[in-house]
């Protein structure tokens, strides 16, 4: 990686825009449970439901960043707990490489987050959204990183 992380000035009235891919069986259900439990978390993430995290092509994440997503969250079943036995392991391997190329290309890798949250882990899901939102808030808009 060669571009130095510029000190960014976070603009006023800016809210991080976060895209969250959730698998239907664990994390989407966990997000539902967060709602029914009335766990409050930042409203910045937009959840896009996929059947399994294995469905996620790294391109979905990279394209989102290019389109201006300030952060991308992927949340799935814990390794070993995949509803489809092993889709999440394949995503996990893709993710390891993806995170590295993102970092190498000079985009702050803290903008992307992979987490495991089961259907019962509403708090973990909500905390994940919160942490990513706060982290991205500190880094600033991705458009500022383009500066």
């Amino acid at each position, binding site marked *: 990686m060669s571009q130095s992380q510029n000190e960014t000035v976070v603009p006023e009235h800016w809210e991080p825009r976060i895209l969250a891919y959730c698998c239907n069986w664990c994390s989407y259900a966990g997000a539902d*449970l967060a709602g*029914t*439990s*009335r*766990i409050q978390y930042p409203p910045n993430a937009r959840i896009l439901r996929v059947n399994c995290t294995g469905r996620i092509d790294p391109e979905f994440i990279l394209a989102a960043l290019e389109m201006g997503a300030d952060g991308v969250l992927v949340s799935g079943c814990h390794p070993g707990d995949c509803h489809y036995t092993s889709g999440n392991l394949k995503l996990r391997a893709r993710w390891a490489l993806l995170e590295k190329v993102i970092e190498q290309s000079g985009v702050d890798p803290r903008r992307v987050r992979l987490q495991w949250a089961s259907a019962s882990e509403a708090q973990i899901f909500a905390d994940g959204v919160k942490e990513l939102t706060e982290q991205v808030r500190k880094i600033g808009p991705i458009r500022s990183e383009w500066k």
Partner: protein
Amino acid sequence: MPARTKSQKQATATKKVSQNALVVGGGVAGMQAALDIANQGFKVYLVEKSPSIGGRMAMLDKTFPTLDCSACILTPRLSEVARHPGIKLLTYSDLESVSGKAGSFRVRVIKRARYVKEELCAGCGECSKECPVEVPNEFDWGLGFRKAIYVGFPQSTPSTYTIDMESCIKCKRCERACERKAIDLEMEDERLEFDVGAIIIATGYRLFDVARYYRLGYGRIPDVIHAMEYERLINAAGPTHGHLVRLSDGRIPQSIGFVQCVGARDVTKDVPYCSRVCCMYGIKNAVMAKEHNPDADATIYYADIRAFGKGFEEFYEMARSRFGVKFFRGRAAEVRRDSRTGKLVVRVEDTEKAQPQDVEHDMIVICPGIQPPEDLAKIVEKMGISVTTDGYVDVANRYFGPVDTKVPGIFVCGCADGPKDIPDSVTEGSAAAMKATIILSGGGAA
């Protein structure tokens, strides 16, 4: 047509088992039983005495432990039952008599006149708009009003309107308003007769009359209400459109006390048993108070917190730690109104400190226990079943026949055989259906 083995067909043929079942009561337990029977290809008559199926659950605002809104999860169930080709809905109907035995009962049902033709009414409500008569709505426990031609609640199933002839003044404005000519003021009760192979009793419960505890002030002090009234108050479709206000002055209560174990675990009031649901609905209601007004104070007066079901203890813990509901161990002895401040004062002994205390609140919600419906004894008597001393239907054996009554072919589920929460009632509904279909299919150990 259900797929059945050859031996069953023979059994059916020789025993002449009716392929129909009767379910008495259209609450969650009865609906579940009806669905599980009908899904096997049998025909079900579902008899419900009120104008709509849905039972008590339809009156609730939220459900514990997930705070799912009751209407949201119940409504699809209502339409599933209503549109199931195997279920014949007989709402606003009463069971008149039962004769015969397992495999072939003869049943008579009286379908009371609604004065609105079910097949014509589209539920548009034009009639109700025109009706000049307003009476307290029993669905809202009298807190709101309905017309003389009405549906109890928006998701009422069937959506057919009903005329309450006791209040109707026969002005016929509804008749003129109805474009579909569905109103028939001359309608008469109908008598239906049919055969069934098995019967399921799912008649539900009634709430304990909390006025029997004079010292708790219900009926005397306007801001002392009971839990079902509270449910209607916080319900968006209820009389206040979901605004939690005091009935005396319309102000938003800043402090609410919830009094548990009223008409439960009390030998002196003939309710020696635990009602199973009050702790949890009490906690749920306290959480809802916090949700409506996060700054409000919600205190629960209890003896033991019985959070025993799946996710219940976790919900109790959440109410305490996340929502800040206060739990006060002590049975409320008395509620009075301080005429100077207008506050309600609960006199209670803090058993953890062994001190009697007076605590002020703006509103008191009494959480009554559950009792068998008034007419349960009468209904089951028609089937040759007697009730126990506490008024419920007795089951044959807790292990071998937990949903079997002492009359073969007749089963029981939900609160008809004792207090139960929703999942336990639903489970029993399915279990009763299982037993009934064994009879309908001509099977059985015999």
